[in-house]
């Protein structure tokens, strides 16, 4: 097949992108050679990710007493000892409800990720942080973002452009492997590169569908036009992925294609969740090292965590509400079992990123991972003093190793800080009393 068709479809894609700019960034790859600059010794890309666990923690056992670099790891933070140097612990930051009801297991996470507490039980008032960041940095890679969930349910995802646009999670190592390292994967370190003629034909097919959309648009109400625009974003994303498959990718020393993943049992039973999470974390780390995506979202357990232990009639969420506080211990031992497992899983996740050498440091050094839950004390759905952590150095921009204690400050201070560290030009973020112009100064290196 000649290059003719390719050139035409490339131009076509780029031009329809310009003509129908929907407030989305134009794909860098169409416009310049982004992605090659850093490959020959330049700056490595900075990646952003989230790591969520459900049903919070026990504030007295989780929040450190001291602030700054000299804080001591508390009982519930003790599993983090091996990764302490890579972390920041942020306590005392709250979702401020502004008189809106506290929708259990929803207000906390949505307030944290969108900067605005929801008005209804499924309401998503603004795009989540990862979507804002992916709009900025997600277009240089094959996938705008990748989502994984360890609990077996693809709906367990907090990557949301709106209430009805949720990026579904991959729930098994096999599915994640197939999506990233299956037939569409081009190994950047392969010496030979032969563009696949089928990919060019697929591009022309997508171009034709873009035309369908243009005619259809005239016949729709504003609500459907908006949905069609979202569909169009998805079309362009695939067009973009195909374009990348036709270009020889720049070599990446850190990229190694993993062995194919095996089929595994997928469920919310804690043993399965831990095993699947660990495998998917490893695959995700390689997907980042191979620059397949720069944004990712991980759900270890969803809000109102449905993790459970084999043989126990009550799972994590049920236990947080129904288990009495043991008077001798001062906490709910069975519910807290899941807090400990969550902190261990988070440690595993960070270690997977830290285990890949990249440039002069590790992959983790070029990441900023934001870990958080939807409540502090889950028994009463408390959305004040949410447990939050960061991992990685964001390419050297983020200071690590400290505990910052907010004094009921809005969580938007964290979100604003993260956006600025990722290079977004934002000087305020959030709605109502959550709105802030104050990033957390201590975190800037």
């Amino acid at each position, binding site marked *: *097949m*000649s290059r003719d*068709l390719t050139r035409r479809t490339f131009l076509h894609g780029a031009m329809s992108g310009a003509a129908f700019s929907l407030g989305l960034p134009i794909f860098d790859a169409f416009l310049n050679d982004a992605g090659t600059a850093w490959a020959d010794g330049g700056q490595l890309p900075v990646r952003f990710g989230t790591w969520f666990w459900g049903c919070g923690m026990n504030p007295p056992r989780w929040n450190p007493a001291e602030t700054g670099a000299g804080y001591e790891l508390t009982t519930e933070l003790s599993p983090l000892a091996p990764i302490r140097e890579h972390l920041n612990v942020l306590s005392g930051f709250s979702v401020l409800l502004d008189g809106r*009801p*506290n*929708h*259990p297991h929803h207000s906390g996470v949505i307030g944290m990720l969108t900067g605005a507490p929801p008005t209804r*039980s499924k309401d998503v*008032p*603004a*795009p989540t942080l990862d979507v804002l960041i992916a709009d900025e940095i997600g277009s240089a890679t094959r996938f705008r973002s990748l*989502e994984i969930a360890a609990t*077996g*349910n*693809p*709906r367990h995802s907090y990557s949301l452009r709106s*209430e*009805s*646009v949720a*990026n*579904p999670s991959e729930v098994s190592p096999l*599915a994640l492997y197939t999506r990233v390292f299956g037939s569409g994967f081009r190994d950047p370190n392969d010496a030979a590169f032969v563009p696949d*003629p089928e990919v060019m*034909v*697929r591009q*022309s*097919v997508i171009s*034709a*569908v873009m035309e*369908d*959309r243009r005619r*259809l648009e005239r016949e*729709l*109400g*504003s609500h*459907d036009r*908006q*949905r069609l625009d*979202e*569909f169009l*974003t*998805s079309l362009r*994303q695939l067009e973009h*992925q195909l374009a990348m498959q036709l270009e020889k990718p720049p070599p990446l020393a850190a990229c190694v294609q993993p062995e194919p993943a095996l089929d595994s049992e997928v469920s*919310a*039973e804690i043993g399965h969740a831990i095993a699947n999470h660990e495998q998917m974390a490893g695959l995700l780390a390689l997907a980042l090292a191979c620059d397949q995506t720069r944004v990712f979202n991980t759900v270890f357990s969803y809000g109102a965590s*449905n993790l*459970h232990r*084999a*043989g*126990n*009639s*009550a*799972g994590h969420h*049920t236990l947080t*509400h*129904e*288990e009495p506080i043991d008077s001798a211990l001062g906490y709910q031992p069975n519910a807290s079992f899941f807090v400990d497992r969550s902190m261990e899983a988070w440690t595993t996740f960070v270690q997977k990123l830290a285990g890949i050498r990249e440039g002069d440091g590790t992959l983790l050094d070029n990441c900023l991972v934001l870990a958080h839950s939807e409540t502090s004390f889950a*028994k*009463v759905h408390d959305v004040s003093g949410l447990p939050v952590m960061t991992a990685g150095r964001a390419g050297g921009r983020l200071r690590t190793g400290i505990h910052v204690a907010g004094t009921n400050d809005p969580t938007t201070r964290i979100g604003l800080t993260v956006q600025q560290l990722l290079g977004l030009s934002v000087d305020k973020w959030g709605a109502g009393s959550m709105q802030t112009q104050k990033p957390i100064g201590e975190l800037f290196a």
Partner: protein
Amino acid sequence: MIGSMHSSASRWLLLALAGAVALSCSRDDGVGPIAMRRLTADQYKQTIADVFGPDIKVVGRFEPDARREGLLAVGTAFVTITPAGFEQYETIARRISAQVIAPDNRDRFVRCTPEDASATDRACAEQFIAEVGRRLLRRELSDEDVAPRLEIAEATTRKLEDFYTGLEYALTSLLISPEFLFRVERASPDPDRTDRLRLTNDTIASRLSFFFWNSTPDDELLDAAERGDLAGGSTLDRQIERLVASRKLESGVRAFFSDLLRLDEIDEVSKDVLLYPRFNRQILADSREQTLRVITDHLVVRNADYRDLFTSRRSFMTRNLGLVYQVPVREREGWEPAEFPEGSPRAGLLSHVSLLTLHSHPGRSSATLRGIFVREALMCQEVPAAPADVDFTVVQDTNNPEHKTARDRLSAHSTGTGCESCHRLMDPIGLGFENFDGIGMWRASENGEPIDASGRVDGEAFEDLVGVGRVLRDNPGVSACAVESLFRYAVGRSAVVGEREFLRDLTARFAASGHRHRELMRMIAASEPFRTASALREIPPGSES
């Protein structure tokens, strides 16, 4: 704080019970808006099976469907397709196209032969695109639809020197078109009323076929639409009769009840296998199929009274289900008819393992979840969510020596805590289910204490779950809810205030028909609200993005 939340919850509740919440749309203009609706995974698969045959496999992961106001059918008018979802749809489409155009199959679908299989043949390609495209896009294709597909076919054929590969990609482009993946509803101004739109014949054809068959219109229905036969009158009635008489009616009835009873959620159920050693995935799959078989047998095959679904003792069993129901099953493989004897603790839909399992926790039953299900799905009432700071500690501490049964625990929780107003709604019904555990197995006692499953629903007394079924059967709110739900399902939106009178009338006519579900489907399909609209759906004022 707690006090004020509860009193506002109580007010909310009163509104809900007055029926004001179910009719949630604010516009009082007689009919509701139309919208673009994403095909559900089942509709996609059914369409491919109808157009290309059941041997063409649909392999891949679909974007999850989303329930809204109790129905996936309403949710389809809000969802879109994410980048991750579209990747999958494109892959699914290519897999389908490759099968359709494979040498063994192509002669069934390509009804012309190219002069030279390694060169382009415009007329033949055009014929294929137009014929298949009409079924997939559910209307006659315009030149604007055909031309880009023809270009794909010809460009591909020229490059790869194969006529059929060209068709393969032209077909793929139809399968990823927004007009295939979404049902786009169209309407034109009503000449008689300025505040009304009339749906186009094409749109009515799709509404009809997805309502009755859960699939794309067939050629005959599309022909009728092209003749303008679906705007009303006897030509419309003739098509409705044909749709009702078709074998495919069963798919439509299944799709509605699967949506209403949330049977799709069975895929997400997880149960503790140590507590429930008899549980396995096959039981879940069989339990859903059992419920759908009972429903279609009752409503379609026997054309029996809808209300008797709550009391009927007729069922179907597999060997696997027999283990949970604790009944002998003769056949080693497959299904056999079964009947629960008089005096059995099981009768009606509510005693099905599917529903009992779905509305339970992973490790125990839940009177509250079961009560909410009955109130919301079967009675169209809205139960407010529990306040965020409620104390559940006592509710189901199953080891508490004081509170051995769920009834003891729930009454300890809801007495004098302010939780009572809501729990009075859910628990008395839900406690009627307590003789069945978290996977729907029968039990006489919990923790050695005999279970008292008696109670009242809106004043009517019952002794056990069979009694709950009897009370619900005769509750006029349950029939009215069936009518409203089916209407909402048919039009893909909630009823508007201006449709109340219509729904009351429909409920009366449903009763007059002897509560025949097929009659109800006919009446809805032939009604004005089914083929008119107020407007295109606009973004609500004040919403972001």
